[in-house]
């Protein structure tokens, strides 16, 4: 009974887990691709695995799909162990990076392919594939050739081709990577809506933090074969668990220095050039040890006049080095006056300070509770 109970173990949110990975390990010629990894993905969620290239995320996904044999550990899909189960027998389907639609078949035949392999009769195959195409907004496209479709339509065919088989889990291997920016933004929204409409559990891998944040209900940030942090996009953004997560997710200013003093949760960090900043600490850090502090560009206030800054926070002076205009994401790159360190500050969206000039002297400050510092990796 106790085994059954653990198989049916329930995740924090109360839903059953569709995917459970236990102590999964994979080595390639002495290089550890996936290192003793364990996690669970709850039913109906959109789970992203975010990491730089070479972090092992593709290996992980291909192990879940069954294309790579793990060295150790186990993968359970819908509480069933996938050990010794071939890819064509797993209740998992994958959306490939290049989509891998079959060019020798029509759109309808592509969607029917999996059903035909399960010996579903032709009439029902046609009915179900038409239904599925209609659900992804491609009604009437069944007789088209694959190369007649636009990039976005192809993506929807790839999803229809997989979802028509009603898999427990849909794996997506950076399917937006090959699209141009405009279409990518559009497809992001479409993917999220499709996932919500079908309710299938999606496991999505990407190196693009904005895709992971926008799409996912939970994100695992992967680095060197391990998860640095698993959490909601908000948790990753506002309370990163490690320096890697802080620097990888979203834009961040990194200030490296020594922890010189602490009062309560707030520490003072002094860089080797003598610049002092304040930040809250993550975990116990001894005074005098090297630390890395991270301050989000939008956490800082920017003013021409020091007296306009809030009184309670330490004030810093910088010189405008370049203006990075990007609509709502516009920022200004400063050089802090005493240390000459670069510091990025978001421009207010009201259009105030839009007339800043390169070389101008400005004042900035930030709330130490919105800045975070970690013990430096190399001590």
């Amino acid at each position, binding site marked *: 009974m106790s085994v059954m109970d653990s198989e049916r173990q329930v995740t924090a949110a109360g839903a059953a887990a569709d995917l459970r990975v236990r102590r999964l390990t994979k080595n390639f010629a002495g290089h550890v691709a996936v290192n003793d990894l364990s996690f669970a993905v709850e039913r109906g969620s959109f789970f992203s695995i975010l990491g730089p290239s070479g972090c092992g995320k593709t290996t992980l996904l291909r192990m879940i*799909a069954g*294309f790579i044999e793990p060295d150790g550990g186990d993968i359970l899909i819908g509480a069933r162990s996938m050990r010794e189960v071939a*890819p*064509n*027998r797993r209740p*998992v*389907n*994958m959306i*490939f*990076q*290049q989509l*891998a639609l*079959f*060019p*020798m*078949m029509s759109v309808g035949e592509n969607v029917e*392919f*999996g059903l035909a*392999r*399960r010996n579903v009769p032709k009439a029902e195959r046609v009915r179900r594939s038409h239904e599925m195409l209609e659900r992804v907004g491609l009604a009437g496209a069944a007789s088209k050739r694959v190369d007649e479709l636009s990039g976005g339509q192809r993506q929807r065919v790839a999803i229809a*081709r*997989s979802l028509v*088989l009603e898999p427990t889990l849909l794996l997506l291997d950076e399917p937006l990577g090959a699209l141009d920016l405009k279409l990518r933004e559009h497809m992001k929204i479409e993917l999220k809506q499709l996932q919500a409409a079908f309710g299938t559990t999606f496991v999505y891998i990407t190196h693009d933090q904005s895709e992971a944040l926008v799409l996912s209900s939970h994100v695992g940030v992967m680095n060197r074969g391990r998860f640095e942090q698993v959490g909601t996009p908000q948790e990753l953004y506002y309370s990163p668990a490690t320096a890697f997560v802080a620097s990888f997710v979203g834009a961040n200013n990194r200030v490296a220095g020594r922890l010189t003093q602490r009062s309560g949760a707030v520490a003072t960090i002094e860089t080797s050039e003598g610049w002092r900043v304040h930040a809250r600490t993550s975990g116990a850090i001894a005074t005098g040890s090297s630390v890395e502090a991270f301050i989000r560009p939008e956490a800082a206030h920017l003013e021409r006049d020091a007296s306009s800054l809030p009184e309670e926070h330490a004030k810093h002076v910088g010189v405008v080095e370049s203006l990075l205009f990007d609509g709502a994401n516009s920022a200004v790159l400063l050089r802090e006056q005493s240390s000459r360190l670069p510091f990025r500050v978001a421009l207010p969206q009201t259009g105030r300070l839009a007339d800043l000039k390169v070389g101008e002297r400005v004042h900035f400050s930030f709330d130490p509770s919105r800045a975070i510092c970690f013990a430096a990796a190399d001590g």
Partner: protein
Amino acid sequence: MANTLALPLPRAWTPRLILTLLLAPALLWLVALIVLPHMQLALLSFRERVAPHEYEPSLGQYQTFFAEPLYWQVFVRTAVLSVTATALTLLVAFPIAWVITKVARGRASSLLFAICLIPFWVSETVRALGWLILLRESGVLPALLVKLGLTAMPPELLYHDATILTGLVYTSLLFMVVPLVSSLESLDNSLVEAAYDLGASGLAILRHIVIPHAAPGITAGCIVVFMLCLGNYLTPNLLGGKNSQWFTELIYTQFIVRFNWEQGAAFGFLLLGLSTAIVALGLRMSGQRFVDVMRRS
């Protein structure tokens, strides 16, 4: 001063002139060595010698072909064996091409391809003689069979249809492997994985993904190999001996032994017609277009 060397031609002529010059060798080859001799042969095949240096237009040569059972039986036999050899070559070459393109990686793949190529550095005659050494009654393979106790007397392995087929498959293998490799190389591995992921078995992947993708390469290879087999003279003659009954031997006999150029020319045209008909039939059956296939080969 630099432009004194430029051709004193209107600008519009220059590209056309370059094109003509580039095409000239190919056109010369085509007209002088293929079209003109064939026209001459066509004229030869439709005339009959009634007296020394006196000829009349006639269909006599073609009538002889159909009237004489030996001729058309050899003709049918050559066609059937050539088609069989082509099919066998495809069966042997496909796994080789698959291993070269999809299983072996990097250097191993190049090495395997080189291994297929190296025997072709040796002339076909020498290779056929090599087979003779291996297969003749006092040769290597019969001696081995006796030594293993499989037969009491060394068997005669030469001069069978199977021997001819073996020789033809061996000679044509490379011409099948090359187009197959090029068409399998362009097969995206993720298509195979996607089919596998969608529940297809190995056989279903082969049937629905690999073969449709490689169809132009398969057709190209089959056309080339079929033509080579049908027109082969050396291999059937050496390995099949007097029993080989290959149609090219009949043509040779007419031209060289009987000095009946008219009959030889008619046979030549019948062979041309046969290969054209079978290739057209093959294209039709596989649903391929000749232009697509030629682009692949």
